[in-house]
Every structure is written in C-alpha cells, then in structure tokens.
C-alpha cells in the first residue's frame, strides 16, 4: 500500500517536470519519466501525424512508432536543443515514410471516401472535438491529397503547429529557402484544390 502511494507521489512529481528534464531523466533510464513524456506528447504527435498521413488510425500507428524511436534514440538527444524540434523531426520523418508507402498513399487519395466514412462512423473522439476543428480537419484531408509529402509536412508544421521556418528547416534537414519554397507551392496547390472541390469558399475573393 505504501509502495503504491510512493509510486503515485513520484509520478505526481515527475508530471510537473518540464519536457527537457523528462527527456534527460528518460535518457538516464527512468521509465516513469519516459511514460510521462509519452502521455504528454501524444496529442501533439498524433495531431501532426494525422495532418500528414491523413487519417486518425494511421496517425496512432505512427505515434507508436515515433515513441518507440524516441526510446531507442533517447541517448542521442542533446538537451541543449528543444525537445519539440527533435520530437517533431522524428514524427515528421516517420509520417513522411508512412505516407510514401503505397498503402498509405492509396488511403490519402481516397480521402473523400474516407471523409464520408468518417462522418458515418463518428467516433466518440470526433464528438469531443469541436465541430469547427473537425470540419477544417476534414477539409484539409480532402484538399491536401495533391501535395507532396514534404509540401504537406511543411504546411502542417508552419500553419497548424505554428513552427518557425528555421525550426522546420532543422526538422526536415533542409534550408530555410527550401521551406519557404515548399510553403509557397503548398499554398498555391491548396488554393487550386479548394477552387476545384469547394468553389463556394472562393466567393468574394478579391485577388488570386
């Protein structure tokens, strides 16, 4: 009984630690810190993976792979740098790899079908998400099919995760100008797709 109580106390203390400290403790083999880190970062990783791979089920699989990779590579984490950048780099790369696999590509192209299916099978998770977020999420899935993996990753990181261009360049291992280029092209393609699939959204536009 006392042991359970002290474990709970330990977990409570660990839960208050900042990300960096958790990562350092996990690197030293503290599994409670690692578990706390996984629990804390799951929504962010699932969210990022979901935007890139296109559906919730795959995003959860990717999230599992991400955290396993984190555990395997935690000794390489340099605590001078932001944990989020390192984590996003792993999550983005694994999501891109996943998207590149033919199975996932098929799913991404069938986003419209998926959209209908998802509406029919509204899960408890969908119900808790705000209606507007759900709507935007579905809209993005539908119009982002024509983006390349890198364009999609850059757009998601910049617009939805609000990462700095420098940070995205670090995450993807490319130059800032490449990031801006991907972003520019992604916006152009998305505008085109929205005009094609949802012309009502362009009503009242003043310039192209």
């Amino acid at each position, binding site marked *: 009984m006392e042991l359970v109580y002290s474990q709970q106390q330990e977990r409570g203390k660990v839960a208050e630690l900042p990300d960096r400290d958790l990562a350092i403790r996990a690197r030293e083999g503290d*599994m409670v810190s*690692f*578990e706390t880190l*996984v*629990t804390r970062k*799951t*929504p962010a990783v*699932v*969210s990022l993976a*979901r*935007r890139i791979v296109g559906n919730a089920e795959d*995003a*959860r699989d990717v*999230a*599992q792979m991400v*955290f*396993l990779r984190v*555990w*395997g590579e935690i000794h390489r984490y340099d605590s001078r740098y932001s944990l989020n950048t390192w984590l996003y780099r792993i999550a983005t790369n694994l999501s891109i790899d996943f998207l590149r696999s033919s199975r996932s590509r098929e799913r991404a192209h069938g986003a419209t079908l998926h959209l209908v299916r998802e509406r029919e099978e509204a899960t*408890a*998770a969908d119900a*808790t*998400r*705000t209606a507007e*977020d759900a*709507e*935007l*999420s579905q*809209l*993005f899935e539908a119009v982002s099919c024509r983006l390349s993996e890198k364009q999609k990753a850059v*757009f998601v990181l910049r*617009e*939805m*995760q*609000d990462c*700095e*261009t420098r940070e995205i360049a670090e995450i993807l291992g490319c130059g800032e100008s490449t990031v*801006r280029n991907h*972003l520019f092209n992604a*916006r152009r393609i*998305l*505008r085109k797709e*929205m*005009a094609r699939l*949802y012309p*009502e*959204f*362009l*009503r*009242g*536009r*003043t*310039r192209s």
Partner: protein
Amino acid sequence: MRTPSAPDQTPTNPVCAIVRASFEDYRSEALPAPQRRMLREHLRGCDACRAAAAAEDPTFRFARSLNETVSEGESREILSAVMTGVDLLRTERRIRGPRPSRRLRIGSAAAAAVAAAVLVSTGWGILQSPAMPTAGGVPVPASTAMISAQPTSSSAHTDVTALQPAAMSEDAPAPSPDAIVYDWNPGAGREEPRVVWIVDRGLDI
C-alpha cells in the same frame, strides 16, 4: 461545410484594420514572429477578420492550431503499445548483449584492417622471398626484366615456380619452356606489390 460570411470591408476596430493590412505579409512569410502570432491569435477570436482572411486566400482557414483530441482511452492504448514495444526491445537487447561502444567498434575495424594488411604483405613475401629472379646470380634490373621460363635448365634461367604464390605452385602446372615471364618490379620490398605476367605460347589455340 460552412460557407464564409461576407468579409467586413470597413473594420471599425483598429486592430482589425492592422490585421487585415498584414494578410499579404503573412502569406509571403514577411511578417515577424510576434506579429504573426498576434495575427493568428486575433483570427481565432474575430469572426469578421477570419472571414475576410478566408476571402483573401482560402488557405487562411488552416492558419490555426487544430487541436487533435486524443481521448484518455486512446492515449492509454498508445502508451500501452509503446511500453510493450519498449519491453520487447529491451529483451532483444538483453539477449544480444550490450552493443559495443563506438570506440571499441572503430578499434575492432582498425585491427581487422591491420590483420588484412599483414596477410596481404605476407602473401607477397612468400611470392618474393625464396628466390629473387636473377640472371647469372646477378639481380635482374627492375621494371621490365624478361625471363625465359626454363625451371630445370641453367642458372641463367629463373626458377619460375618461385615467382608464383605458394598456394598456386602445388596445383598449377609448370609453364612450358616457351613461356616468357615478365616480372615487373622484381626487387619490390614488402610495401610494394610485385606484378608477374606469364605469356605461354604453348597454350595458344
């Protein structure tokens, strides 16, 4: 899907006016980080500006953090799967034993390279040591010494078998008397490779 409401053309709020004037800079990535953050914050709370932004560029709709709600059950499921994977990886590592350190791996690779180098040089040593090609007891001049291959004849001729690696000399038939051995670099030391070229006209078709 909800269609956008008509954007307010004349914002009464000065903040709205500033935000709307910054749309172009936002799109062209020319907005500094604090202003960018402020614009995003403002769009989140201002329906009219959100509609104006979407009318300007429909991709503005995505300019916000979409909170992916992961239920507690899902989160627990992911954690459980991850911890199972971690346990498996740990077991695998325990069975395999600890991975040697990087320094040890580099050391092993260097040792293997040195061993290979020694073996190669020993091979060349065998090739060179028993009898250096000589002509009448005098070492053949370097580079293109041409030796007639007559193993059993006079000392003026070189024992050709001595020019061949030991492993080959047992099984390989002795070259015919017509064979000509070109020995390039016959006086090569351990550091230099020896190149021997045998032309046996007896094998001509």
